[in-house]
Structure formats: C-alpha cells, structure tokens
C-alpha cells in the first residue's frame, strides 16, 4: 500500500499520529493491567503472569518479525503457518536433541522467509499476495510433512526445555522473546540494517537512489520474519510437546494488529520495537482478562460476545490513538 493511500494528512501529522499511538498503547496496557489486578483475584499471581508470558512469547516473536517487515512497507501473512511448519520440522528433529530441533525450526522459518523475500524482491509480487502464497505453501508443507497429524516431540532430550522450562524462575520462551526484542531494539536503532529498513519503508525510491541495497534490505526483513516465526514454531513444539501443522491460524492478523496498535505505520518508515511488545501484551492480555471475567460468574460471555468485545476493543484502541494524535498535532 503506497504512502499516499493511507490518509490525506500531511506527513508531519502522520508522524505525530504514530508517536501518540505509541504513548497510548503503553497507557492502555497499564490501565488494562490495573483493571485486571483490581477486579480479579490471582490476576497478578505468579502463575498467571508466568503462563501468560510463556504463551504470548510466540506471538511476541512473530510480531517482532512482522514489525520489521511493516516498517519496510511490506506485510507478512505467512508468520502463523510458518510457525506451524517450523514446529513440525523441529518436532521431527527433536529426538536428536535441543540444537537439532532448534536449528530445524529456524531453518524451516528461514526457508519460507527466503521464498517470501524472493517473491517480493525478485519476482516483484506485492507483499500481500506473495506472503499469502507463502502462507499456503508453508501450511501445505507442514501438513504433508506431518501426514496431517500432530507430531510428538521427544521427551527424552532436553528439547522441551525451550518451551516448558524455566531459567532463573522465568519461562524459557519469555527469555527467548526478551532477547529477541533486545536484539530488535538494537538492530533498529544502532545497526545500519534497522535504519535501512526505515529508509526503504519511508521512501523506497529515494532509498534506491541514495544507493541503499533496497532489495537486499527487503529480502532480509522477510527472512528475519521467517526466522522469528520459525523460532515461534520451535517454542510451539517445545511448549506443547508436539509439532502442530494446523496451528497458527490467525496469528498473522494478531501480529499485524499488535504492530499497528504499537504505533508502527502500515505504510512503513516509522516504527518502534518496544511498543510492539506492548501491543502484543495488550492484545494477549485481552484473552486472559476475558477468561477471568468468565470466571467471576457474573456474566458468562459466550465466545461470540468475546469476538465482539475484542473487535470493539481494537477499535477503541485505534480510535483513542487517533484522537490523541489529533490533539498532539493541534498543540504542536
């Protein structure tokens, strides 16, 4: 989607819009946590906090990859099925140990990412369509490899530690995601790669004329997204003890929403790694809060009302950040 399509606002206003959105997501997250802490017993209990972190680390990883792709003005619809495919590969390799399983998953993600990147940069296919086919191919490959069934991981090796284990009292997957976000933050702010991604997303033509290796940068964002999705797949396999070829449905939309709620523009060129994480936690906590709400027994929200509530919640977050942006733009 080209820069001109999103809205008629001048670029200055759009930047402050993104900035305001970033403040808002952190405030919204804090409010949601406060709400949960005050309303529900055990909400901030160690068990709940740690299991929420353990579970959402997968989405944190796919969203991080997505964040870079979107900052480069692309999109990656394949993250969910790539994770599923990678979970199958790593489950199949898990009997050989932790590292073979890990590398297998990463390799699978890398392969899908490379195919996506190739389609986008070499074949000139629009990212939405390119990664849509990547999504179908990854899903099909996973199912073929797994013969349509979940693949058991080996409990004999320490592979499952990657998903079920702890390190210093914290879930291993949460450590992995945290490390990835530290890397992401450094890469965005202190490595040429991150700056090139922003430049390419901000004005691809200018970046090309400035002599930046545009295609290589775009290619790498897709590869990186694939690798992070692969890592999420490894955690998926390790955490649930099985490679699951049919998992990952809707992960891409979750990730896109998290990235956007985190104040990264879908048109590219502006973004933040830290608030993407806030976006992930915000959207992830919504599920948790809804579960707790049902547990109160006052009202039993059916799954259907939950979808409506989630949709409305996303709408409110988006609206709030847009309203805040307008106020900021006026006072500036």
């Amino acid at each position: 989607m080209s820069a001109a399509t999103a809205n008629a606002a001048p670029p200055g206003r759009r930047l402050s819009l993104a900035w305001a959105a970033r403040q808002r997501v952190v405030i919204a997250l804090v409010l949601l946590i406060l709400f949960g802490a005050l309303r529900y017993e055990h909400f901030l209990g160690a068990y709940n906090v740690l299991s929420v972190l353990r579970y959402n680390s997968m989405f944190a990883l796919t969203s991080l990859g997505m964040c870079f792709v979107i900052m480069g003005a692309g999109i990656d619809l394949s993250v969910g099925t790539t994770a599923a495919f990678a979970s199958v590969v790593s489950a199949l390799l898990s009997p050989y140990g932790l590292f073979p399983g890990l590398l297998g998953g990463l390799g699978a993600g890398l392969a899908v990412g490379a195919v996506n990147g190739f389609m986008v940069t070499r074949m000139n296919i629009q990212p939405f369509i390119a990664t849509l086919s990547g999504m179908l191919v990854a899903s099909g490959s996973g199912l073929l490899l797994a013969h349509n069934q979940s693949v058991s991981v080996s409990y004999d090796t320490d592979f499952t530690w990657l998903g079920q284990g702890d390190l210093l009292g914290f879930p291993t997957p949460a450590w992995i995601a945290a490390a990835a976000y530290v890397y992401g933050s450094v890469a965005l702010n202190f490595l040429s790669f991150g700056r090139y991604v922003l430049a390419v997303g901000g004005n691809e033509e200018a970046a090309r004329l400035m002599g930046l290796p545009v295609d290589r940068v775009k290619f790498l964002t897709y590869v990186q997204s694939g690798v992070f999705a692969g890592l999420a797949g490894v955690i998926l396999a390790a955490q649930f003890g099985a490679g699951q070829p049919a998992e990952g449905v809707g992960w891409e939309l979750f990730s896109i929403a998290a990235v956007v709620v985190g104040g990264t523009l879908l048109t590219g060129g502006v973004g933040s790694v830290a608030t993407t994480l806030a976006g992930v936690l915000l959207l992830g906590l919504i599920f948790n809060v809804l579960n707790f709400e049902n547990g109160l027994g006052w009202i039993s929200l059916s799954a259907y009302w939950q979808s409506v509530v989630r949709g409305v919640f996303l709408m409110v977050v988006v609206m709030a950040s847009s309203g805040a942006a307008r106020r900021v733009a006026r006072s500036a």
Partner: protein
Amino acid sequence: MADAPTIGRKGASFDVAAFFRRYAALTALIVLLAFNFAVTPNFASWQTLNVNLTQVATIVIVSVGMTLVIATGGIDLSVGSLMAISGALAPMIFLSSFGLSYPALGNALAFVAPVAIAGMFGLFNGWFITRFRVQPIVGTLVMFIAGRGIGQVLTNGNLQAFKNPTFQFIGLGRVFGVPCQVIIMLALVAAAAWTLRSTLFGRQILSVGGNERAAWLSGVPVASVKRWVYAISGLCAGIAGLVVVSINSSSDANLVGLGMELDAIAAVAVGGTPFTGGQATVVGSLIGALLIQLVRYTLLANGVPDAAALVVKGAIIAGAVWSQQRGKPT
C-alpha cells in the same frame, strides 16, 4: 521507476509472447482448461461448467466489491464476516413469526434487509477508516473480528436450517437454464466494469487510489468515495451471504464466508489489479476467480491430497501475479 531492460523490445509489432504475459491469468485459464479436457475424467460436460460457475459465483460477487476497494488503495478484510451476518439475518427474517404470517413480505424483506445491513456495516468500515484515518487493513480487521461475532450472537451460534423455495431461488433457481447466482455474478461484473469505465464515481475511485491528495485538491469528495466503496463491498458480501445460505438450505454464522477475504483478494490480485490503487479491472478479477476455482476443481477431481493442493494453490497464485507483473509495460 526501475524499469526492466528494454533492449530488444519492439514497440509496434505485435508480440505474441508479450500478449500472453500481459493476459497471464487468461492464458493460464486456457491452458488449465486444455489440461482438464485432456486429463480430468468426465470434464467435457455442461454439468462441469454448471458446478464451476455456481461455486465461483460467491467469490466473484465478493471480488467485485473488493476490486473497487482495492482500486482506491484500500483493502477489505471484513467481507467474510459480513457474509455471515447477512446469511444469519435472512432466515431469521423469513422464519420469524412476521415472516411466516406474511410470507411474501417476509421473503422480500429477507432479500433486502440483510444486504442493506451488510452494506451499512460496510459503510461503517468506510466511516471508521476515513473519520479516524485508520489504515484499511486495521479498520476492516475490526469488523473481521467483531462481524462474525455479531452474526454468531444473532443466532447464538446455532445453525438455522430451512426450506424456502422462494428465497432459495437466489441460490438454486435458474433463468433460461442459467443458475440465478451466475446471472447475478455476471450482472455485477458488468455493472462494476461499466461504473469504473464510464461513470463519474468510477473515475473518482481511480483518482482517489492514484493520488488521494491530488484528487482531494481537485474537488473529489475523497471520504465519501471511500465510504461508498466500502459500502458497496459490504453490499456485495451481503448478496454473496444470501447465495451461500440458500444453496445450503442452512445458515451457519460460524462458517458462512469463512476465509472469503483471502480468496477474494487473491482473485483480484491474480486478475491484475495492483494493490497500490489507481488501476483496476473487474473482468480481470472474474478471470482470476475462475482460474483459482478451476485450479481447485482440477486438484480435487484428480485426487491431489488437500495438503499438496495448498502448495499448488500458493504457487499458482504467485505465478499468475508474477507473470502479470512482467507483462506490464513499465
């Protein structure tokens, strides 16, 4: 800007290869037809045509609206959910006590109201996107999530089974032997193609997609054009929802239109409409949808396993869009 090497490309003389590359989807469609005539058992029959056309109709109907949305540089993820809402509403209307006591009125209302309401939700998408300057993917993602929930809440998730020949004419009826939904599909394609080509609204859609700020400064009512485009997409989805439930004699808000957004978007892309907006071909979307449908038919009829079919489908979509890309003059 980076233009393909132009060495050796002849401007004037007719280049057969270039022609086929330009019309890649059509070419692929023809090739696939030839393949099927040769390989697939029992392919050469009217019933095959009938099966394919009736199956593709809903995707095409949705693609028509989607093409217009994409022409403005937007995208509509909510179409499947709007199909579910419309599909849920129709039987609720004619099965209600009102609908049962006044069948004629109930049936008429069952056609009009769900489509109109889907259109209203589409209008809401457009309003949300223009009023809050939300990127279309996110703007329609809201309705993608909430819309199906609304459909499910309306029916409490229950499946509504019915038998109502009048209403089901839209999915099962035939006019001069042509299935009703095929006629609707062709009419919508023709209307949308004509709208894009010859009407003020059509030109405004393309100018908004081509350069929104320039269009606005030239007096094009950008926000209203966008709202209408999403409303039309909602209307198309509403019609498609009616077609689906009437063929099945049942409405299941959980499943009606599930995954339709990606099918429709793929059809539009394979048909040659770029996502950047400003250019669009509705007939292309029809061809794109037919191609995807025929691929699915071919794989199913030849017993290709479902998992492998996913891989093939992905490859075909990418391949078709790719050759389209190459055939385009720089």
